[in-house]
């Protein structure tokens, strides 16, 4: 074990802003990116659904 206490761990020997500034930004990006990709896929699927609904409606109107 490297750290005597939790306080030591968070202090990172005085380099806390740099170490945590790095890790937090990396973690943030690697959380936001997948979330954004999922939102993008969902939006594309929703658009397809809307187009499909519109197509079905015009087809049924044409048949009628």
């Amino acid at each position: 074990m490297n750290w005597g206490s939790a306080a030591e761990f968070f202090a990172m020997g005085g380099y806390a802003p740099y170490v945590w500034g790095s890790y937090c930004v990396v973690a943030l990006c690697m959380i936001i990116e997948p979330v954004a990709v999922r939102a993008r896929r969902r939006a594309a699927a929703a658009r397809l659904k809307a187009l499909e609904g519109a197509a079905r409606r015009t087809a049924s109107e044409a048949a009628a």
Partner: protein
Amino acid sequence: MINWFRFSSPQTFYPLAGRMVPWFAGAAAILALAGLYLAFFVAPTDAQQGESYRIIFVHVPASWMSMFIYLVMAGWAAIGLVFNTRLSYMMAAALAPTGALFAFLSLWTGALWGKPTWGTYWVWDARLTSELVLLFLYIGVMALHAAIDDTRRADKACAVLALVGAVNIPIIYFSVQWWNTLHQGASVSVTRAPSMAAVMFAGMIVMVFAFWAYSIAVALARARAIILERERHSGWAHELAAA
């Protein structure tokens, strides 16, 4: 006989990618936990740099992945140009943003490492400067794709650009190294680690694999989104949406 092109149609690739994403995401999470454990609780304090050196456990993976992803992107670009398979172009488009993100993270973590170690946030060393140029190359490819309305033309143009960039990367890296050694006597390499303990190296490698699994997961997921966006005129996509 293996049908190499079986999964080269978006229709067959979409569900395959959907099954692969959770596995790679899970692998990324496990590897990241293992790597972070090694990075913080096993690897000892560095004699010269203190605790700030622990940034390499994210800086080096980000750098390596940014370069590796560019090569993979260029590879898909080449396959697309040779075989005219539209899914190859979609894979290249799916990889670019993740690669650019890693290039940015490499610069960000490199700057935060440079400040306590060499006193300034930006050091014009060969690796960081080449990373900056790599970020510009990524941005160029993405900007070109966004600027061309015709998807087919955009795909092919970006493929050519990605390949031109890939060929240039070694030349750019060499020229920047040349420039750096002439202008700075004592080399200040951000990734200098001559006496890296085995445990530090192990932690770094585990994190590299974590980033690699993450990249695959995100790229496959983004490829699925791109497929849905582009294939909106095809029957299978509408059936998928109707389901």
